[in-house]
C-alpha cells in the first residue's frame, strides 16, 4: 500500500508538473487504511483505544471522502464494538496534504443510517503517512490519530 501511494504521489507529481498551471504541487489524498489511537471523551474523561483501524476512501474526483472506523467502542460500557462510516467529508487537497471537514453527517452503521451518532464538527487532515481528525459522535467528542498501515 505504501509503495502504491508513493507511486501515485509520484504519478500525480508528474502530471501536475506537466500542466501549465500557476498552482503549486498539491498532494492528492488516496485510499488508505490507517492504524491508530481513538480517543473518546465520555463524562469529561478521555478513553483511549489503541490499534483502531480507519479506512479513508475518497471519491474519484478526490474532493469528497468517507471514513470508516472499525470496531469502535465509544464508551467502555459498550458490550459490543461496531463498524461506523462517516460519509460526505469534504476534501481539500493542498501542497501539504489533504484537509478534511464536515459540518454534519449521518453515519452509516449496522446496515443503514444511524442518526443516534450524527457527526458534527468534523475537522482533520491527511498528511504524509498520517491521518488526524476530530469530531463529535452524537454527544461524544472523539479524535483519532493514525499512521498508514503497511501492506
Amino acid at each position, binding site marked *: 500500500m505504501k509503495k502504491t501511494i508513493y507511486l501515485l504521489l509520484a504519478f500525480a507529481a508528474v502530471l501536475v508538473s506537466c500542466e501549465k498551471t500557476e498552482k503549486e504541487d498539491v498532494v492528492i489524498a488516496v485510499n488508505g487504511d490507517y492504524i491508530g489511537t481513538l480517543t473518546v471523551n465520555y463524562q469529561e474523561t478521555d478513553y483511549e483505544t489503541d490499534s483502531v483501524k480507519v479506512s479513508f476512501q475518497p471519491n474519484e474526483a478526490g474532493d469528497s471522502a468517507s471514513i470508516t472506523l*472499525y*470496531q469502535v467502542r465509544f464508551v467502555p460500557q*459498550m*458490550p*459490543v*464494538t*461496531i*463498524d*461506523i462510516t462517516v460519509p460526505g467529508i469534504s476534501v481539500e487537497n493542498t501542497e501539504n496534504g489533504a484537509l478534511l471537514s464536515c459540518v454534519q453527517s449521518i453515519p452509516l*452503521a*449496522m*446496515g*443503514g*443510517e*444511524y442518526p*443516534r451518532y450524527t457527526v458534527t464538527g468534523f475537522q482533520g487532515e491527511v498528511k504524509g503517512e498520517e491521518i488526524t481528525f476530530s469530531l463529535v459522535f452524537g454527544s461524544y467528542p472523539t479524535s483519532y490519530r493514525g499512521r498508514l498501515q503497511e501492506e
Partner: protein
Amino acid sequence: MTMMLLLSLLTAVSPLNDTLTHELPAVSITVAKEQVPVERMASAVSAISSESIRRSSTYRPNSLSSLIPGLHIPDYGASLTSTIYLRGLGSRMENPVMGLYIDGIPVLDKNAYDFDWEGVQSVTMLRGPQGTLYGRNSMGGVLSLSTISPSEEARPLVRVEYGSANTLRAGTSLVAGDHAVSMTFRHTDGHFVNTCQNRLCDPYDGLAMRWKWVGHSRERLCLTNILMMNLSEEGGFAYGLWQDSVLHPVSYNEEGNYRRLSVIEGFRLNYCDEVVKTDALVSLQWLSDDMRMDQDYSPRSVFTLQQRQQSGAATMEFIARRTDADVSWQPQTGMFSFYRRNRLSAPVTFGRDGIESLILDNANSHIPPEVGYLTISDETMPVNSDFVIDSWNVALFHESVWDLDRWQITAGIRFDYEGARMDYDCLARLHYRFVPTMIRDKELSVPYQGTVAHHCFEIIPKLSLLYRVSDVTTCYSGISKGYRAGGFNTQIFSDILQNLTMNAMMRDLGVYLDRPYVSVSASNTEYDPESAWNMEVGARLRENAFHAEAALYCINVVNQQLTVFPPGMSTGRMMTNVGRSRSRGLETALGWNPDRFRSQLAWSWCDARFVDYNDGNEDYSGNRIPYVPQHTLFLGLGYSFKLNGKMLDFDAGLRGEGPFNWNESGSQHEPFRIRADGRVALVSDNWELYVRGENLTDASGRSFYFKSVGNEFFARVKPRTLMTGITFKL
C-alpha cells in the same frame, strides 16, 4: 508374530461344522467363530433356546433385556434408537457396545438392530469384551441369532396374535428342500397419545423376511446364502416434559415418524479338506431410513429434525481352522474387512418460535436496546447439513486353544485398523433486518463445508484359562479387550451452524460481540475409540435339569464415550470422550427344569462409575455412569399340566431393572422397577392357543431421559398389554 500367524494358517485344520454347537434339550445353539462348546468357553455366555424364546414371547432384541443378565435395552423412541447397555458399557447414540450377528453375518448399522424376528432357533449372548474375534463394537458382548436352516427338520409354522392397542402380529416359517423362509408382520396403533395432535403418536407397521438357502455342491463344499429384509414405518418419540417434578403427557405439534428399509445379503462358503477347514463370508448391507422429529417435543414450533440416511456396506471375512478336532491344539486365523459409505442428510428447520427464542432472543441479549434489535422475517429457517461418511476396517486375528487334560488355555490377538472420513456440506439461510438502521430485509447465507478424517490402530489381545473341576463343573478366568469405534458427531452441526449464523449476521452488520457465540467446530466433532479391558472369573455347573453360572468381572474403560448435552439453549447433543471409568459386577443365572416344571433366574449387579471425568464445570469422578442399571433381574416360573392329551402351560415372569442415574450428577434418578409378565397356553401336537400379557400390573415408570433446549424429558414405560394368539404347526 507374523510367522506364527502364517504357521497357524498353514497348519490350520478344522471340523466340518465351523460354528459351535451346544446341545441343550431339544435345541441346537450355535455361536459363530467360537471353537469350543459353551461348556468350555472361558467367558460368560447366555444361551436361549427356541423354546424359551417362545415361552417368554421374545420376538425382538429389546425383549432380551434382563432375560440376559446385565443386558439393558430400553424400549423407547423408535426403532432406530436401539440403545444398549451391558456391564456398565453403552451410550444412547452412535456406535453400539454389542455386536449383532445373524447366522454369522455381522450387522454393521445400529439403526438396523431393532427388528422383529420369526424362525429364530437360538439366541446366544457372549458377555464381556469379545474384541479379539469380533473386533469393533463388541466390547460389551456379542449377540448371535441362529435362524432355521434347511438342514433342520422344522415343521412349517403359522402364528397370529391380536391384542391391546389393536396390535396384530403374524408370522410364518417353513423349510422346503434347500430353502428356509420366515416372515413376520406386526401392526400396532400405539400406546401413547400426543395430546397436542389428539392422536396416538407411536403406531408401528413392520415386515421382516428372511430366506436362507444351503447348497452342498460337493461333499466338502457347503454354500449358504441368506437374504434378510426389514421394512418398517412407525411413529414414536413419546416423550413427556418433566417440569416441577411432574411428568407431563406427550405433547408436540410437528411430525414424528420413522421409516426404514434394511436389506442384508450374505453369502457363505465352507470348504473342508483333511487338513484345513475354511470359512469365507461376504455380505452386502443396505439401509435406507428417514426420521422426522419435533426436536423440542413441545406444542411450540421451535425446531424439527429430518434425518435421511442411505447407507451401503460390504463386509468380508475369511477364517481357517484345523479339521481334526481331536488334537489338543486348535488354532484359527482370520481376516476381516469392511467398507461402508453413509450418505446422511440431516436438515434442521427452525420454526417461528425457534427463530424467536433460540436465535433472536439470544442475539438481541447481546445488543443494548438503545442501539437497536434484530428481526428475522422468515417463518422457517432451514439449516441444511449433508454428510458423506466413509469408514473402513481391516483386521487380522488369531486364536489358539490348547486342551491339556483338565486345563484349557485360550490365547488370541487381533490387529485392527479402522479409518473414517466425513465430508460435510452445510448451509444456513435467512432474511434479517436490524431495526432501526436497516429499511429492508437482507438475505444472509452461511455455508460451512469441509472434511475431517481419523484413523486408529488397535491391538486386541486375549488370554483365558479354564479348569474342568468335574464332568459337570468348570471354572475359568480371563482377560480380554474390546473397543468401540470412534466417529463423528453429525447431530451437533445444527448447533455449529446456529452459532456461525449469529456471528455472520453480526459481522455482516459490523457489530462485534465481546464474547462471540462459541460452539465446537467441525474438527472438534470427532470422537476417539473407547476401549475396555475386562478381567473376569466365573464358574459353570450343569447337571441333569439344573444349571447354574456365575461371573465376576471388573472392566476398566479408557476414552469413555458419553453423550453430553452442551450447556445452555443448545439444540444438539454430542458424543465425547469423557475420561476413564470402571465397572465391576456379578452376573448369575440359574435354571432348574425337572420334568414339567420350569424355573429360571437371571440376576446381575453392576457398579459402573467414572474414575476421571471433569466436564470443565463439574467433577463427576466417582459418580455412577448414567443410564446403567445397577441391577437387572429376571425370574421365570412355569409348569405344564396334562389335559386330555394336551398340555396346559402356565408361565410367569418378573423383570426388574434399576436403580438408574439419568445424568452424570445423579440429580435425576429412577428406582428399581419390576414388570410382571405372564402366559397361559393350551398346546396340542399341531396347534397352540395362548394368552399372554406384559406389564400385567400396569406399573408406571420412566424408561428414558434426555434434555433438549434446556428442558428435561422422559419416556414412559409401556402400559399393560394383553395378547391372544394361535400357532399352527403344519
